[in-house]
């Protein structure tokens, strides 16, 4: 039996969660270091995955594991990674230690004797639990296995959002707690409803396979092969209904307009590290699952739905950007910017061109890193002043230049400045979209203009201008905070100049997905463009 590397990568953080939760109440600091150690061990395992992964190997999945699990449901414990999964696992494993470091003091119980229930152990254990579930959903090649962790992930996330606030709300503690629990419930219900609709589709998929193959199966490969061999013939309407069931859940998670409204609440009320966990790590499962499950299980229905999804993605891009321009709250601004960026990712996926999908997958990575940089610095800023409102800041760059500088770099990455990582992916998405849907490509470009507006105005209002009275004594970034931000910025620069190591791993997987959908890139043909006019 081969070494179960994939299982181990998910099991280590899970074990870490249990171990961290078991640390006695008095040993807070020990719990933090323990959790960090487990997250670093996970990062090491993710690195081993990257090394052992061979981008040029034949076959869709590598490092596979397969065991019987619930035979009655046709469910197997099947793991495997393709290029996209292995990169996203690495991204998640990389971000978690930074998230922990950034939130090092977020869950310290207040010494003032407040009755607030925020044990440090719980905070770090929940983060590790989320990491374990995210990793295993990237690895699962069995639809049911994926579904289980896709859903179960909501519970620790829910407690992270609802249980730990950043203490920066103006309207008193009780009001803040109420807002936070509202945000947590909204998050949970949106995603739970999405998940339940997917459950109906999952059951439907089982019924279809059981009907035609004799025994029901959830194995992605088995289903794809059976379809290719003509043994499994899903009726057009059934395929469309199943596709919609799956897509709905992923569109809630991603999130896509008009199912996005939980994200600004959740990101606004959660602490900055948790907000990063939501948008940079957990939400990636949604876009990833569109590529892995929607496109591969239901290629025909995907093509059928493409026009509508492209329009929704465009609306997300513009709507998110416009609302970001109008925000008064820093964290909500970043949330709306994320909605806009997820629009780009979905657009790239459903443009059905290899450039678009390469760009989209690379975008997932870059968005993770750039949002983490921006949001974590924003979190440091907010923790200093105790307010999330943009209007409460001004002239910070004179008092805390390093903080302002890193904030600027994070912001510039968000607006896709050439030379920083997101530029490459955004450019690929736009080019890929343009070659198939020229009009959509043009409209999406407006999103970049708006991004420049919301980022630069945010920077101008908070960092430049006369120094506000409350900001005057603000300390600059501390060593711990710098240790969080510096590597992320270095990574942004590196991937901005030289994205090849990542694209090399991603591209074969993207080509495979494209071939599953039976899509070839449109030829750049002058007559086509003429005809389109």
């Amino acid at each position, binding site marked *: 039996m081969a070494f179960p590397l994939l299982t181990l990568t998910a099991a280590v953080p899970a074990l870490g969660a249990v171990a961290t939760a078991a640390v006695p109440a008095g040993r807070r600091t020990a719990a933090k270091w323990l959790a960090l150690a487990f997250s670093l061990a996970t990062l090491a395992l993710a690195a081993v995955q990257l090394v052992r992964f061979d981008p040029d190997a034949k076959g869709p999945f590598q490092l596979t594991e397969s065991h019987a699990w619930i035979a009655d449901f046709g469910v197997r414990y099947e793991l495997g990674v393709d290029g996209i999964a292995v990169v996203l696992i690495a991204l998640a494993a990389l971000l978690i230690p930074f998230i922990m470091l950034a939130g090092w003091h977020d869950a310290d119980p207040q010494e003032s004797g407040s009755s607030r229930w925020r044990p440090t152990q719980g905070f770090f254990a929940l983060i590790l639990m989320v990491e374990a579930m995210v990793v295993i959903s990237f690895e699962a090649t069995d639809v049911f296995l994926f579904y289980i962790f896709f859903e179960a992930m909501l519970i620790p996330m829910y407690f992270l959002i609802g249980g730990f606030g950043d203490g920066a709300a103006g309207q008193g503690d*009780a009001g803040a707690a109420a807002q936070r*629990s509202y945000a947590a*419930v909204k998050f949970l219900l949106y995603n*739970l*409803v999405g998940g339940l609709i997917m459950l109906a589709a999952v059951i439907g998929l089982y019924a279809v396979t*059981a009907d035609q193959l004799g025994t029901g199966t959830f194995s992605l490969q088995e289903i794809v092969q059976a379809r290719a061999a003509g043994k499994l013939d899903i009726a057009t309407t059934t395929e469309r209904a199943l596709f919609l069931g799956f897509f709905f859940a992923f569109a809630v998670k991603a999130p896509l307009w008009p199912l996005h409204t939980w994200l600004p609440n959740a990101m606004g009320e959660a602490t900055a590290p948790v907000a990063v966990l939501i948008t940079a790590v957990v939400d990636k499962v949604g876009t990833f699952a569109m590529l892995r499950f929607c496109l591969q299980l239901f290629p025909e229905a995907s093509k059928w739905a493409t026009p509508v999804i492209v329009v929704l993605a465009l609306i997300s891009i513009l709507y998110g950007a416009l609302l970001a321009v109008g925000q008064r709250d820093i964290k909500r601004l970043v949330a709306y910017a994320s909605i806009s960026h997820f629009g780009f990712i979905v657009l790239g996926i459903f443009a059905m061109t290899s450039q678009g999908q390469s760009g989209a997958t690379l975008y997932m990575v870059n968005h993770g890193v750039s949002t983490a940089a921006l949001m974590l610095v924003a979190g440091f800023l907010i923790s200093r002043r105790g307010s999330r409102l943009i209007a409460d800041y001004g002239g910070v760059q004179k008092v805390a230049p390093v903080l302002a500088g890193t904030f600027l770099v994070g912001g510039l990455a968000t607006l896709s400045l050439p030379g920083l990582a997101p530029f490459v992916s955004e450019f690929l998405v736009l080019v890929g979209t343009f070659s198939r849907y020229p009009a959509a490509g043009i409209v999406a470009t407006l999103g970049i203009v708006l991004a420049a507006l919301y980022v630069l105005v945010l920077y101008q209002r908070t960092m430049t201008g006369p120094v506000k009275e409350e900001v005057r004594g603000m300390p600059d970034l501390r060593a711990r905070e710098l240790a969080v931000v510096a590597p992320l910025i270095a990574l942004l620069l590196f991937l901005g100049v030289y994205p090849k190591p990542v694209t090399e791993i991603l591209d074969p997987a993207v080509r495979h997905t494209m071939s599953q959908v039976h899509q070839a890139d449109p030829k750049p043909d002058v007559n086509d463009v003429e005809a389109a006019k």
Partner: protein
Amino acid sequence: MSHAASVHSLWTMSADAPQKIPAPHIEYAQLSPTLIVLGAAVLGILVEAFLPRRSRHPVQLLLTCVALAAAFAAVVALAAGGYGTGKAHAAAMGAVAVDGPALFLQGTILLVSLVAVFTFAERRLDPAAHGRPVDSFAAQGAAVPGGRAEQDAVRAGFTTTEVFPLLLFAVGGMLVFPAADDLLTLFVALEVFSLPLYVLCALARRKRLLSQESAVKYFLLGAFSSAFLLFGVALLYGYAGTVTYSGIADVVGGNVRMLDPVLAGTTGNDALLLIGGALVLMGLLFKVGAVPFHMWTPDVYQGAPTPVTGFMAAATKVAGFGALLRLLYVVLPGLRWDWRPVMWGVAIVTMLVGAIVAVTQTDVKRLLAYSSIAHAGFILAGVVATSPDGVSSVLFYLGAYSFVTLGAFSVVTLVRDAGGEATHLSKWAGLGRRSPLTAATFAVFLLAFAGIPLTSGFAGKFAVFKAAAQGGAGPLVIVGVVSSAIAAFFYVRVIVLMFFSEPKEDGPTVAVPSPLTSSAIAIGVAVTLVLGVAPQYFLDLAGQAGVFVR
């Protein structure tokens, strides 16, 4: 009447041959689970009569636990002896089936009851009264609350240990109920387990009026439903000339084996069959709490002593659905096209009403009552699948659900204030901050109710919906998913209340229970998680048990 000789059953044989009455042939070994439980119940009454008060509690507890464990061992022995599969047959002259579903359900009922006994025996939650430890029960159910008789009883130190034999009698009836293979046995079993439950409901030590009200309500509505059932039985007898399940099924299927001249006018009359079948179904749907026969559920669940509620919610449901399955799959399969649309309707309404009405509830016990109605709807979705998969999914769901229910009600007994259990939801605010472990345990049960993956609730829900989808009941699955979403809302609301709300100044305290309740809760959590993560063994078990004997 010798021409009717072929309709021998346990109930009719003496009428057939008045001149010589042979002893009925009874397979005692195969009926041993029921006999052990009922025997222990009789012994329990003797204990009440002859033992001094002080020693009754430990003796009763021991007797009950040993009896239930022994009965469970007997079930396992029968199943191991092949009675669940190859040797399945109808024992006691066709009155009681010994087959896979019967043994599976009996095993479930016995285990559930064993855990429920732990909560019955809990005596540490309330402070001792008059120097004696007290449990959740009153000594005299019929005494006027706060009246003279009640005070005297308390002062004299009357014991409350007759709940144990009552429980055993109820369990005995429940064991026969899903195994009953003729309609009269079904009716007798129904009464045997219902009457002790009516009495148990009236025995709450606190909130006496509510408790008595619940007992009266349960009794009156239960009596109605029994009457419906009995009337249905009579009509079905008129239709088929026999009360045995297989006999009726034969007549429904068109292979009439005999024709009694007295009944010649009615035999084969479809009106009798349809009305009779509907009435019997009504009686059973009442017991499982399906809409529109659910009216009693919230009041009874709220008023009854919480250990009894937990026992009733878990075990009655198992027994009731067992009987319903047998009736639909053995007696009326030939009538599938008539009852399926009706059961579809009942399932849909039950799911929706349970989930929607639960949203407005402010009392934990009423909330769980409505949630149990919604779950009855989910189970019905598996029942209408009319396939072996449907049977085994329902069996699995019942096992999973009953332990979650039992665990949840056990937690409810722990949260107390000056007036006894603090069941109003507003009092649960901030419980997670004050006693994280209790709140976390309750959260696990709520998540299982909500069907979150990695809990038994999800595996069960998936099993029944899968069976329903394969049985062509796609719309039921959609409705089920929608009501799950609605249901998730109120389960989550309780979690929010416990973890994210500020605790109240005069909030309840969590009593420290004895190992009895602790182990009941621990078993509930363990079963919930094991069935959620590794359900295959139990699915296999339920799958093997999925075939009814005819």
